[in-house]
């Protein structure tokens, strides 16, 4: 990355009080030629990244962007596969136990329900949200947004959907849940015979797909919507 460009307005005088109340979008000019680091406020010139390369901040080493390896069509296919696997992962048992001929098995929704009924509604809701709802909403939002944008349409509610996507990306924990199922299977196996179920393998695949989709970032979605919509 090369040196940032200094502003021509760096020494402009303060605007009169009357003008302060109305800061319109016109007062905030887009600088598509620049990147500002989210983690240290350093300004960089925007460069085009080759596939598979990443740009890091010169001052704090934060990730500024990456050249994408996975194409749009592949991302759509990943999202469709992820949706199917989340459905399978939540309807198939995660682990099956055989205790002297008595068989017990549970899906994720059943485990959440049992926790709720055992008097821990907060833990049940927390698990439902982070292991089930957020990964599911993440997948549906990716399908909805990307599915419209590839057809040249900015979908309804694009901006709120993007804000929601950022939230569920941060709070979705499919990969942690995946590791949790492995630990649970091992702990059950110390008591009785335990067999990993289909649900566990489905969640393993969901983890990989969500990780791949997340790594692609959201920059392309914003860029495409700007190109189609012609705004900002």
């Amino acid at each position: 990355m090369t040196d940032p460009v200094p502003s021509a307005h760096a020494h402009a005088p303060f605007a009169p009080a009357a003008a302060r109340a109305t800061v319109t979008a016109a007062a905030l000019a887009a600088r598509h030629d620049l990147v500002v680091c989210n983690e240290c406020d350093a300004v960089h010139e925007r460069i085009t990244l080759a596939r598979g390369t990443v740009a890091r901040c010169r001052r704090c080493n934060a990730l500024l962007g990456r050249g994408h390896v996975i194409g749009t069509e592949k991302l759509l296919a990943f999202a469709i596969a992820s949706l199917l696997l989340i459905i399978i992962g939540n309807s198939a048992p995660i682990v099956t136990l055989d205790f002297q001929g008595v068989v017990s098995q549970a899906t994720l929704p059943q485990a959440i329900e049992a926790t709720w009924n055992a008097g821990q509604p907060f833990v049940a809701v927390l698990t439902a949200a982070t292991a089930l709802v957020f990964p599911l909403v993440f997948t549906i939002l990716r399908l909805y947004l990307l599915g419209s944008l590839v057809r040249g349409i900015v979908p309804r509610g694009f901006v709120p959907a993007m804000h929601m996507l950022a939230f569920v990306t941060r709070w979705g924990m499919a990969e942690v849940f995946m590791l949790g199922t492995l630990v649970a299977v091992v702990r059950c196996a110390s008591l009785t015979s335990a067999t990993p179920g289909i649900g566990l393998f489905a969640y393993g695949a969901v983890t990989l797909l969500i990780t791949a989709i997340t790594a692609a970032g959201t920059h392309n979605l914003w860029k495409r919507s700007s190109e189609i919509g012609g705004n900002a």
Partner: protein
Amino acid sequence: MSEASSLQTGAQLRLYGCPTCGRVSQLLHPIADSTPLPCPRCATPLHHRRPRSLQRTWAYLIAATILYIPANLLPIMSTSNVFQGETLHTILGGIEELRTGGDWLLALIVFIASIAVPMLKIGALLVLVITAQRRSRWKQVERAQLYRMIDAVGHWSMLDVFVVVLLVGTIRFGPLGGVMPEPGLLAFGAVVVLTMLAAGSFDPRLIWPEEEAPQRHP
């Protein structure tokens, strides 16, 4: 790092990078600090430093530290059967059971996720908020790296919560055996959420205080 001194910042150039959509906005006329600046593309409020970031981080951090005590002292689950009656399990107890059962690797993974990560996170956030409050320039690159690390690993602490929920759902053999969640699990889940909120409230740009303009303070 000698080239870093030639860098200019958004605050100096009146440039705002949007944390949500990445759009870079240049403010054309100076305005009062209190004027809200929504991003023209996605309406996220733009700031050079997020307001009240340290106060929020402190609040979540103190709450997490207090709850960390019951999370570790109280049992997170109980197992019961007709032969042995009820047994209570704490987080450390569960790790010990895995270790004595011969599952060294899993015991280590659960130890890292449940004990090491929350402690490191609380400790690291304390270092980050205190140094940021002092506008310290001590090891800035390392502190930035530390912030990224704790923000990336924080959610792995949810591991034990998921394990107990799955055991409660699966081990249901009536009088032969059952697992119940216990109050420690609630405290532990709250600690994980609160430390994630603390890390999310901390503005890493506070690691890089702006230089005072030399001509204004001769």
